[in-house]
């Protein structure tokens, strides 16, 4: 045997072995199709529990597109790798999940594999859903299988080669999918553990609030250090939180439940959808999330606490530092903003004092640009906060002047750079977001009002 033949033999063996290993890693069997189960076959209380869990998991917001039917999919989700469209999760037998057994559904949640054995893109946050219990998966399955079936074929994803090959997702999972990663912590309270289970699992808070690496996975070392979603900044919600007043469990609960807090303002952008959902689930679950997240945010340092108290005192007294900023921005603020934001009416119907605004205190001006352009939409049929958008009355330059003024006057921070570009981008992207996102359907300013006539 010649030397080259030996090398060739080893190479061939490696290739075969490698291919076999890759096959073993990537290949998943199809799970047999079933006849769609009858809605009556599910227990009503299980369906109700599933409805609450689906709200905590925010399923409807990605799987619904504005103006279309609930859970029928089709929402374009922009990613650095291309656009992925959400799928139809109604029980339609041909285009939805009507032929999925509960085992197939659980496998999708646990390991991101479709019924046919194909790998699902991690836009579907199974890196979190892998932590959802069997019991909760059953309830979610019961809820989804009892929705009205909608015929809505999947839209073709727009991903660059080679990412359009789903088999590559198997490699991603090897690196970033850690089944069973969530473990209860016996040193903490039951409420804390419940919150951790929800936050790290179904509620998938980190999917937006944790920054991602070059491969699009959450950076484990930077948990909750702030991320991006739909061209909004998802604020850091750990010790790096930029909110002028530090959060505590009580404030988090009221914000997540009601959609606003007097010291922090109103949830908007993608977060408006989240609090809209959380207004309809058991308050004990929202409280558990608040307790866990308060721990993630940590006890504020004495310095930070003092700054928070100073911001609150200043907001109450109305005394603001003398403006030494942009004259155009100051005039716009006086006529367009101050009537609400210095009007003396308490939030949420009056605007928050801008000295308490996280959008202005954040190093990233995007959220402020978005909000000035688009405002806060009132929620149909509910008492809710409202702010007009100024996209049609202000040019990019004028909005940039306003933003720079607000940062100097209220931000107590170094000026932003590149605000003109931010506003220009925000004007382009917000138009798309507002057209496609289903938006909050039902977010009362005060959830306790919901059951009242």
């Amino acid at each position, binding site marked *: 045997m010649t030397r080259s033949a030996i090398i060739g033999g080893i190479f061939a063996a490696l290739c075969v072995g490698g291919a076999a290993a890759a096959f073993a890693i990537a290949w998943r069997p199809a799970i047999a199709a079933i006849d769609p189960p009858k809605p009556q076959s599910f227990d009503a209380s299980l369906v109700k529990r599933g409805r609450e869990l689906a709200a905590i998991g925010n399923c409807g917001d990605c799987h619904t597109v504005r*103006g279309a039917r609930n859970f029928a999919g089709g929402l374009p989700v922009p990613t650095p790798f291309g656009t992925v469209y959400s799928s139809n999760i109604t029980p339609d037998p041909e285009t939805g999940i009507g032929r999925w057994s509960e085992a197939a559904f659980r496998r999708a949640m646990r390991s991101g594999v479709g019924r046919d054995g194909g790998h699902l893109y991690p836009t579907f946050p199974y890196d979190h859903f892998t932590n959802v219990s069997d019991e909760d998966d059953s309830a979610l399955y019961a809820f989804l299988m009892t929705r009205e079936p909608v015929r809505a074929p999947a839209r073709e994803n727009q991903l660059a080669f080679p990412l359009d090959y789903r088999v590559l997702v198997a490699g991603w999972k090897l690196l970033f999918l850690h089944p069973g990663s969530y473990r209860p912590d016996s040193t903490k309270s039951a409420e804390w553990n419940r919150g951790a289970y929800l936050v790290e699992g179904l509620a998938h808070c980190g999917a937006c609030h944790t920054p991602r690496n070059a491969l699009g996975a959450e950076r484990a070392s930077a948990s909750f250090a702030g991320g991006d979603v739909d061209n909004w900044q998802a604020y850091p919600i750990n010790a790096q939180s930029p909110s002028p007043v530090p959060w505590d469990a009580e404030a988090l609960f009221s914000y997540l439940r009601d959609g606003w807090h007097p010291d922090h303002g109103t949830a908007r952008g993608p977060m408006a959808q989240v609090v809209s959902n959380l207004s309809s689930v058991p308050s004990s679950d929202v409280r558990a999330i608040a307790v866990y997240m308060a721990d993630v945010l940590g006890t504020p340092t004495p310095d930070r606490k003092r700054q928070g108290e100073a911001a609150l005192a200043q907001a109450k007294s109305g005394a603001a530092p003398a403006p030494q900023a942009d004259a*155009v921005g*100051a*005039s*716009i603020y*006086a*006529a*367009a903003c101050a*009537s*609400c934001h210095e*009007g003396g009416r308490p939030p949420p119907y009056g605007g928050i004092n801008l000295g308490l605004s996280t959008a202005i205190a954040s190093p990233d001006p995007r959220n402020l640009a978005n909000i000035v352009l688009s405002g806060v*939409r*009132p929620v*149909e049929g509910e008492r809710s906060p*409202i*702010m*007009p958008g*100024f996209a*049609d*009355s*202000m*040019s990019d330059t*004028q909005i940039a002047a306003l933003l720079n003024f607000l940062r100097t006057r209220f931000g107590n921070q170094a000026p932003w750079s590149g605000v003109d570009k931010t506003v220009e981008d925000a004007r382009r992207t917000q138009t798309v977001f507002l057209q496609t996102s289903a938006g909050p359907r039902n977010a009362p300013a005060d959830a306790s009002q919901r059951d009242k006539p």
Partner: protein
Amino acid sequence: MMTLKINGLTHQVDADPDTPLLYVLRDDLKLNAAKFGCGLGQCGSCTVIVDGKAVLSCVTPLLLLEGKQVTTLEGLGTISEPAPIQRAFMEEQAAQCGYCIAGMMMRAQALLQKNSKPTDEEIRTELQQNLCRCGTHMRILRAVRRAARLMDTAELSPGNQGSVP
């Protein structure tokens, strides 16, 4: 002194750059169609058109209007010659107390200028910002649909004043 172009005329007004447009329209120029409702940009009764777009004049300072064309309801038509949008609102009797109607007409006008055949959904979405406390919404919707037809007919045969089915 600020220079404003309103309904095709140029006005010099003695006002600060941060004065809301609505105040100047009503107090200085006596153009009283746009109404003061909430003064917070939340009700829409002050809506006017600026360069083709519906804008809330109570939260629009004069300095934002440099070089722009403002149109108020007075600029669309007169009592003797109402514009299609005004005719449509009258023919559908869309006003109850009428306080919101000027704003409704201006936002509807802006919509019809960029989209001559809006769907009901588009009309509702667009007018969502304008509040009517009397509850004439169904008539307002009919009026906007009628206005769309009137404008369409007017375009096909200029000067046609015939009734619209």
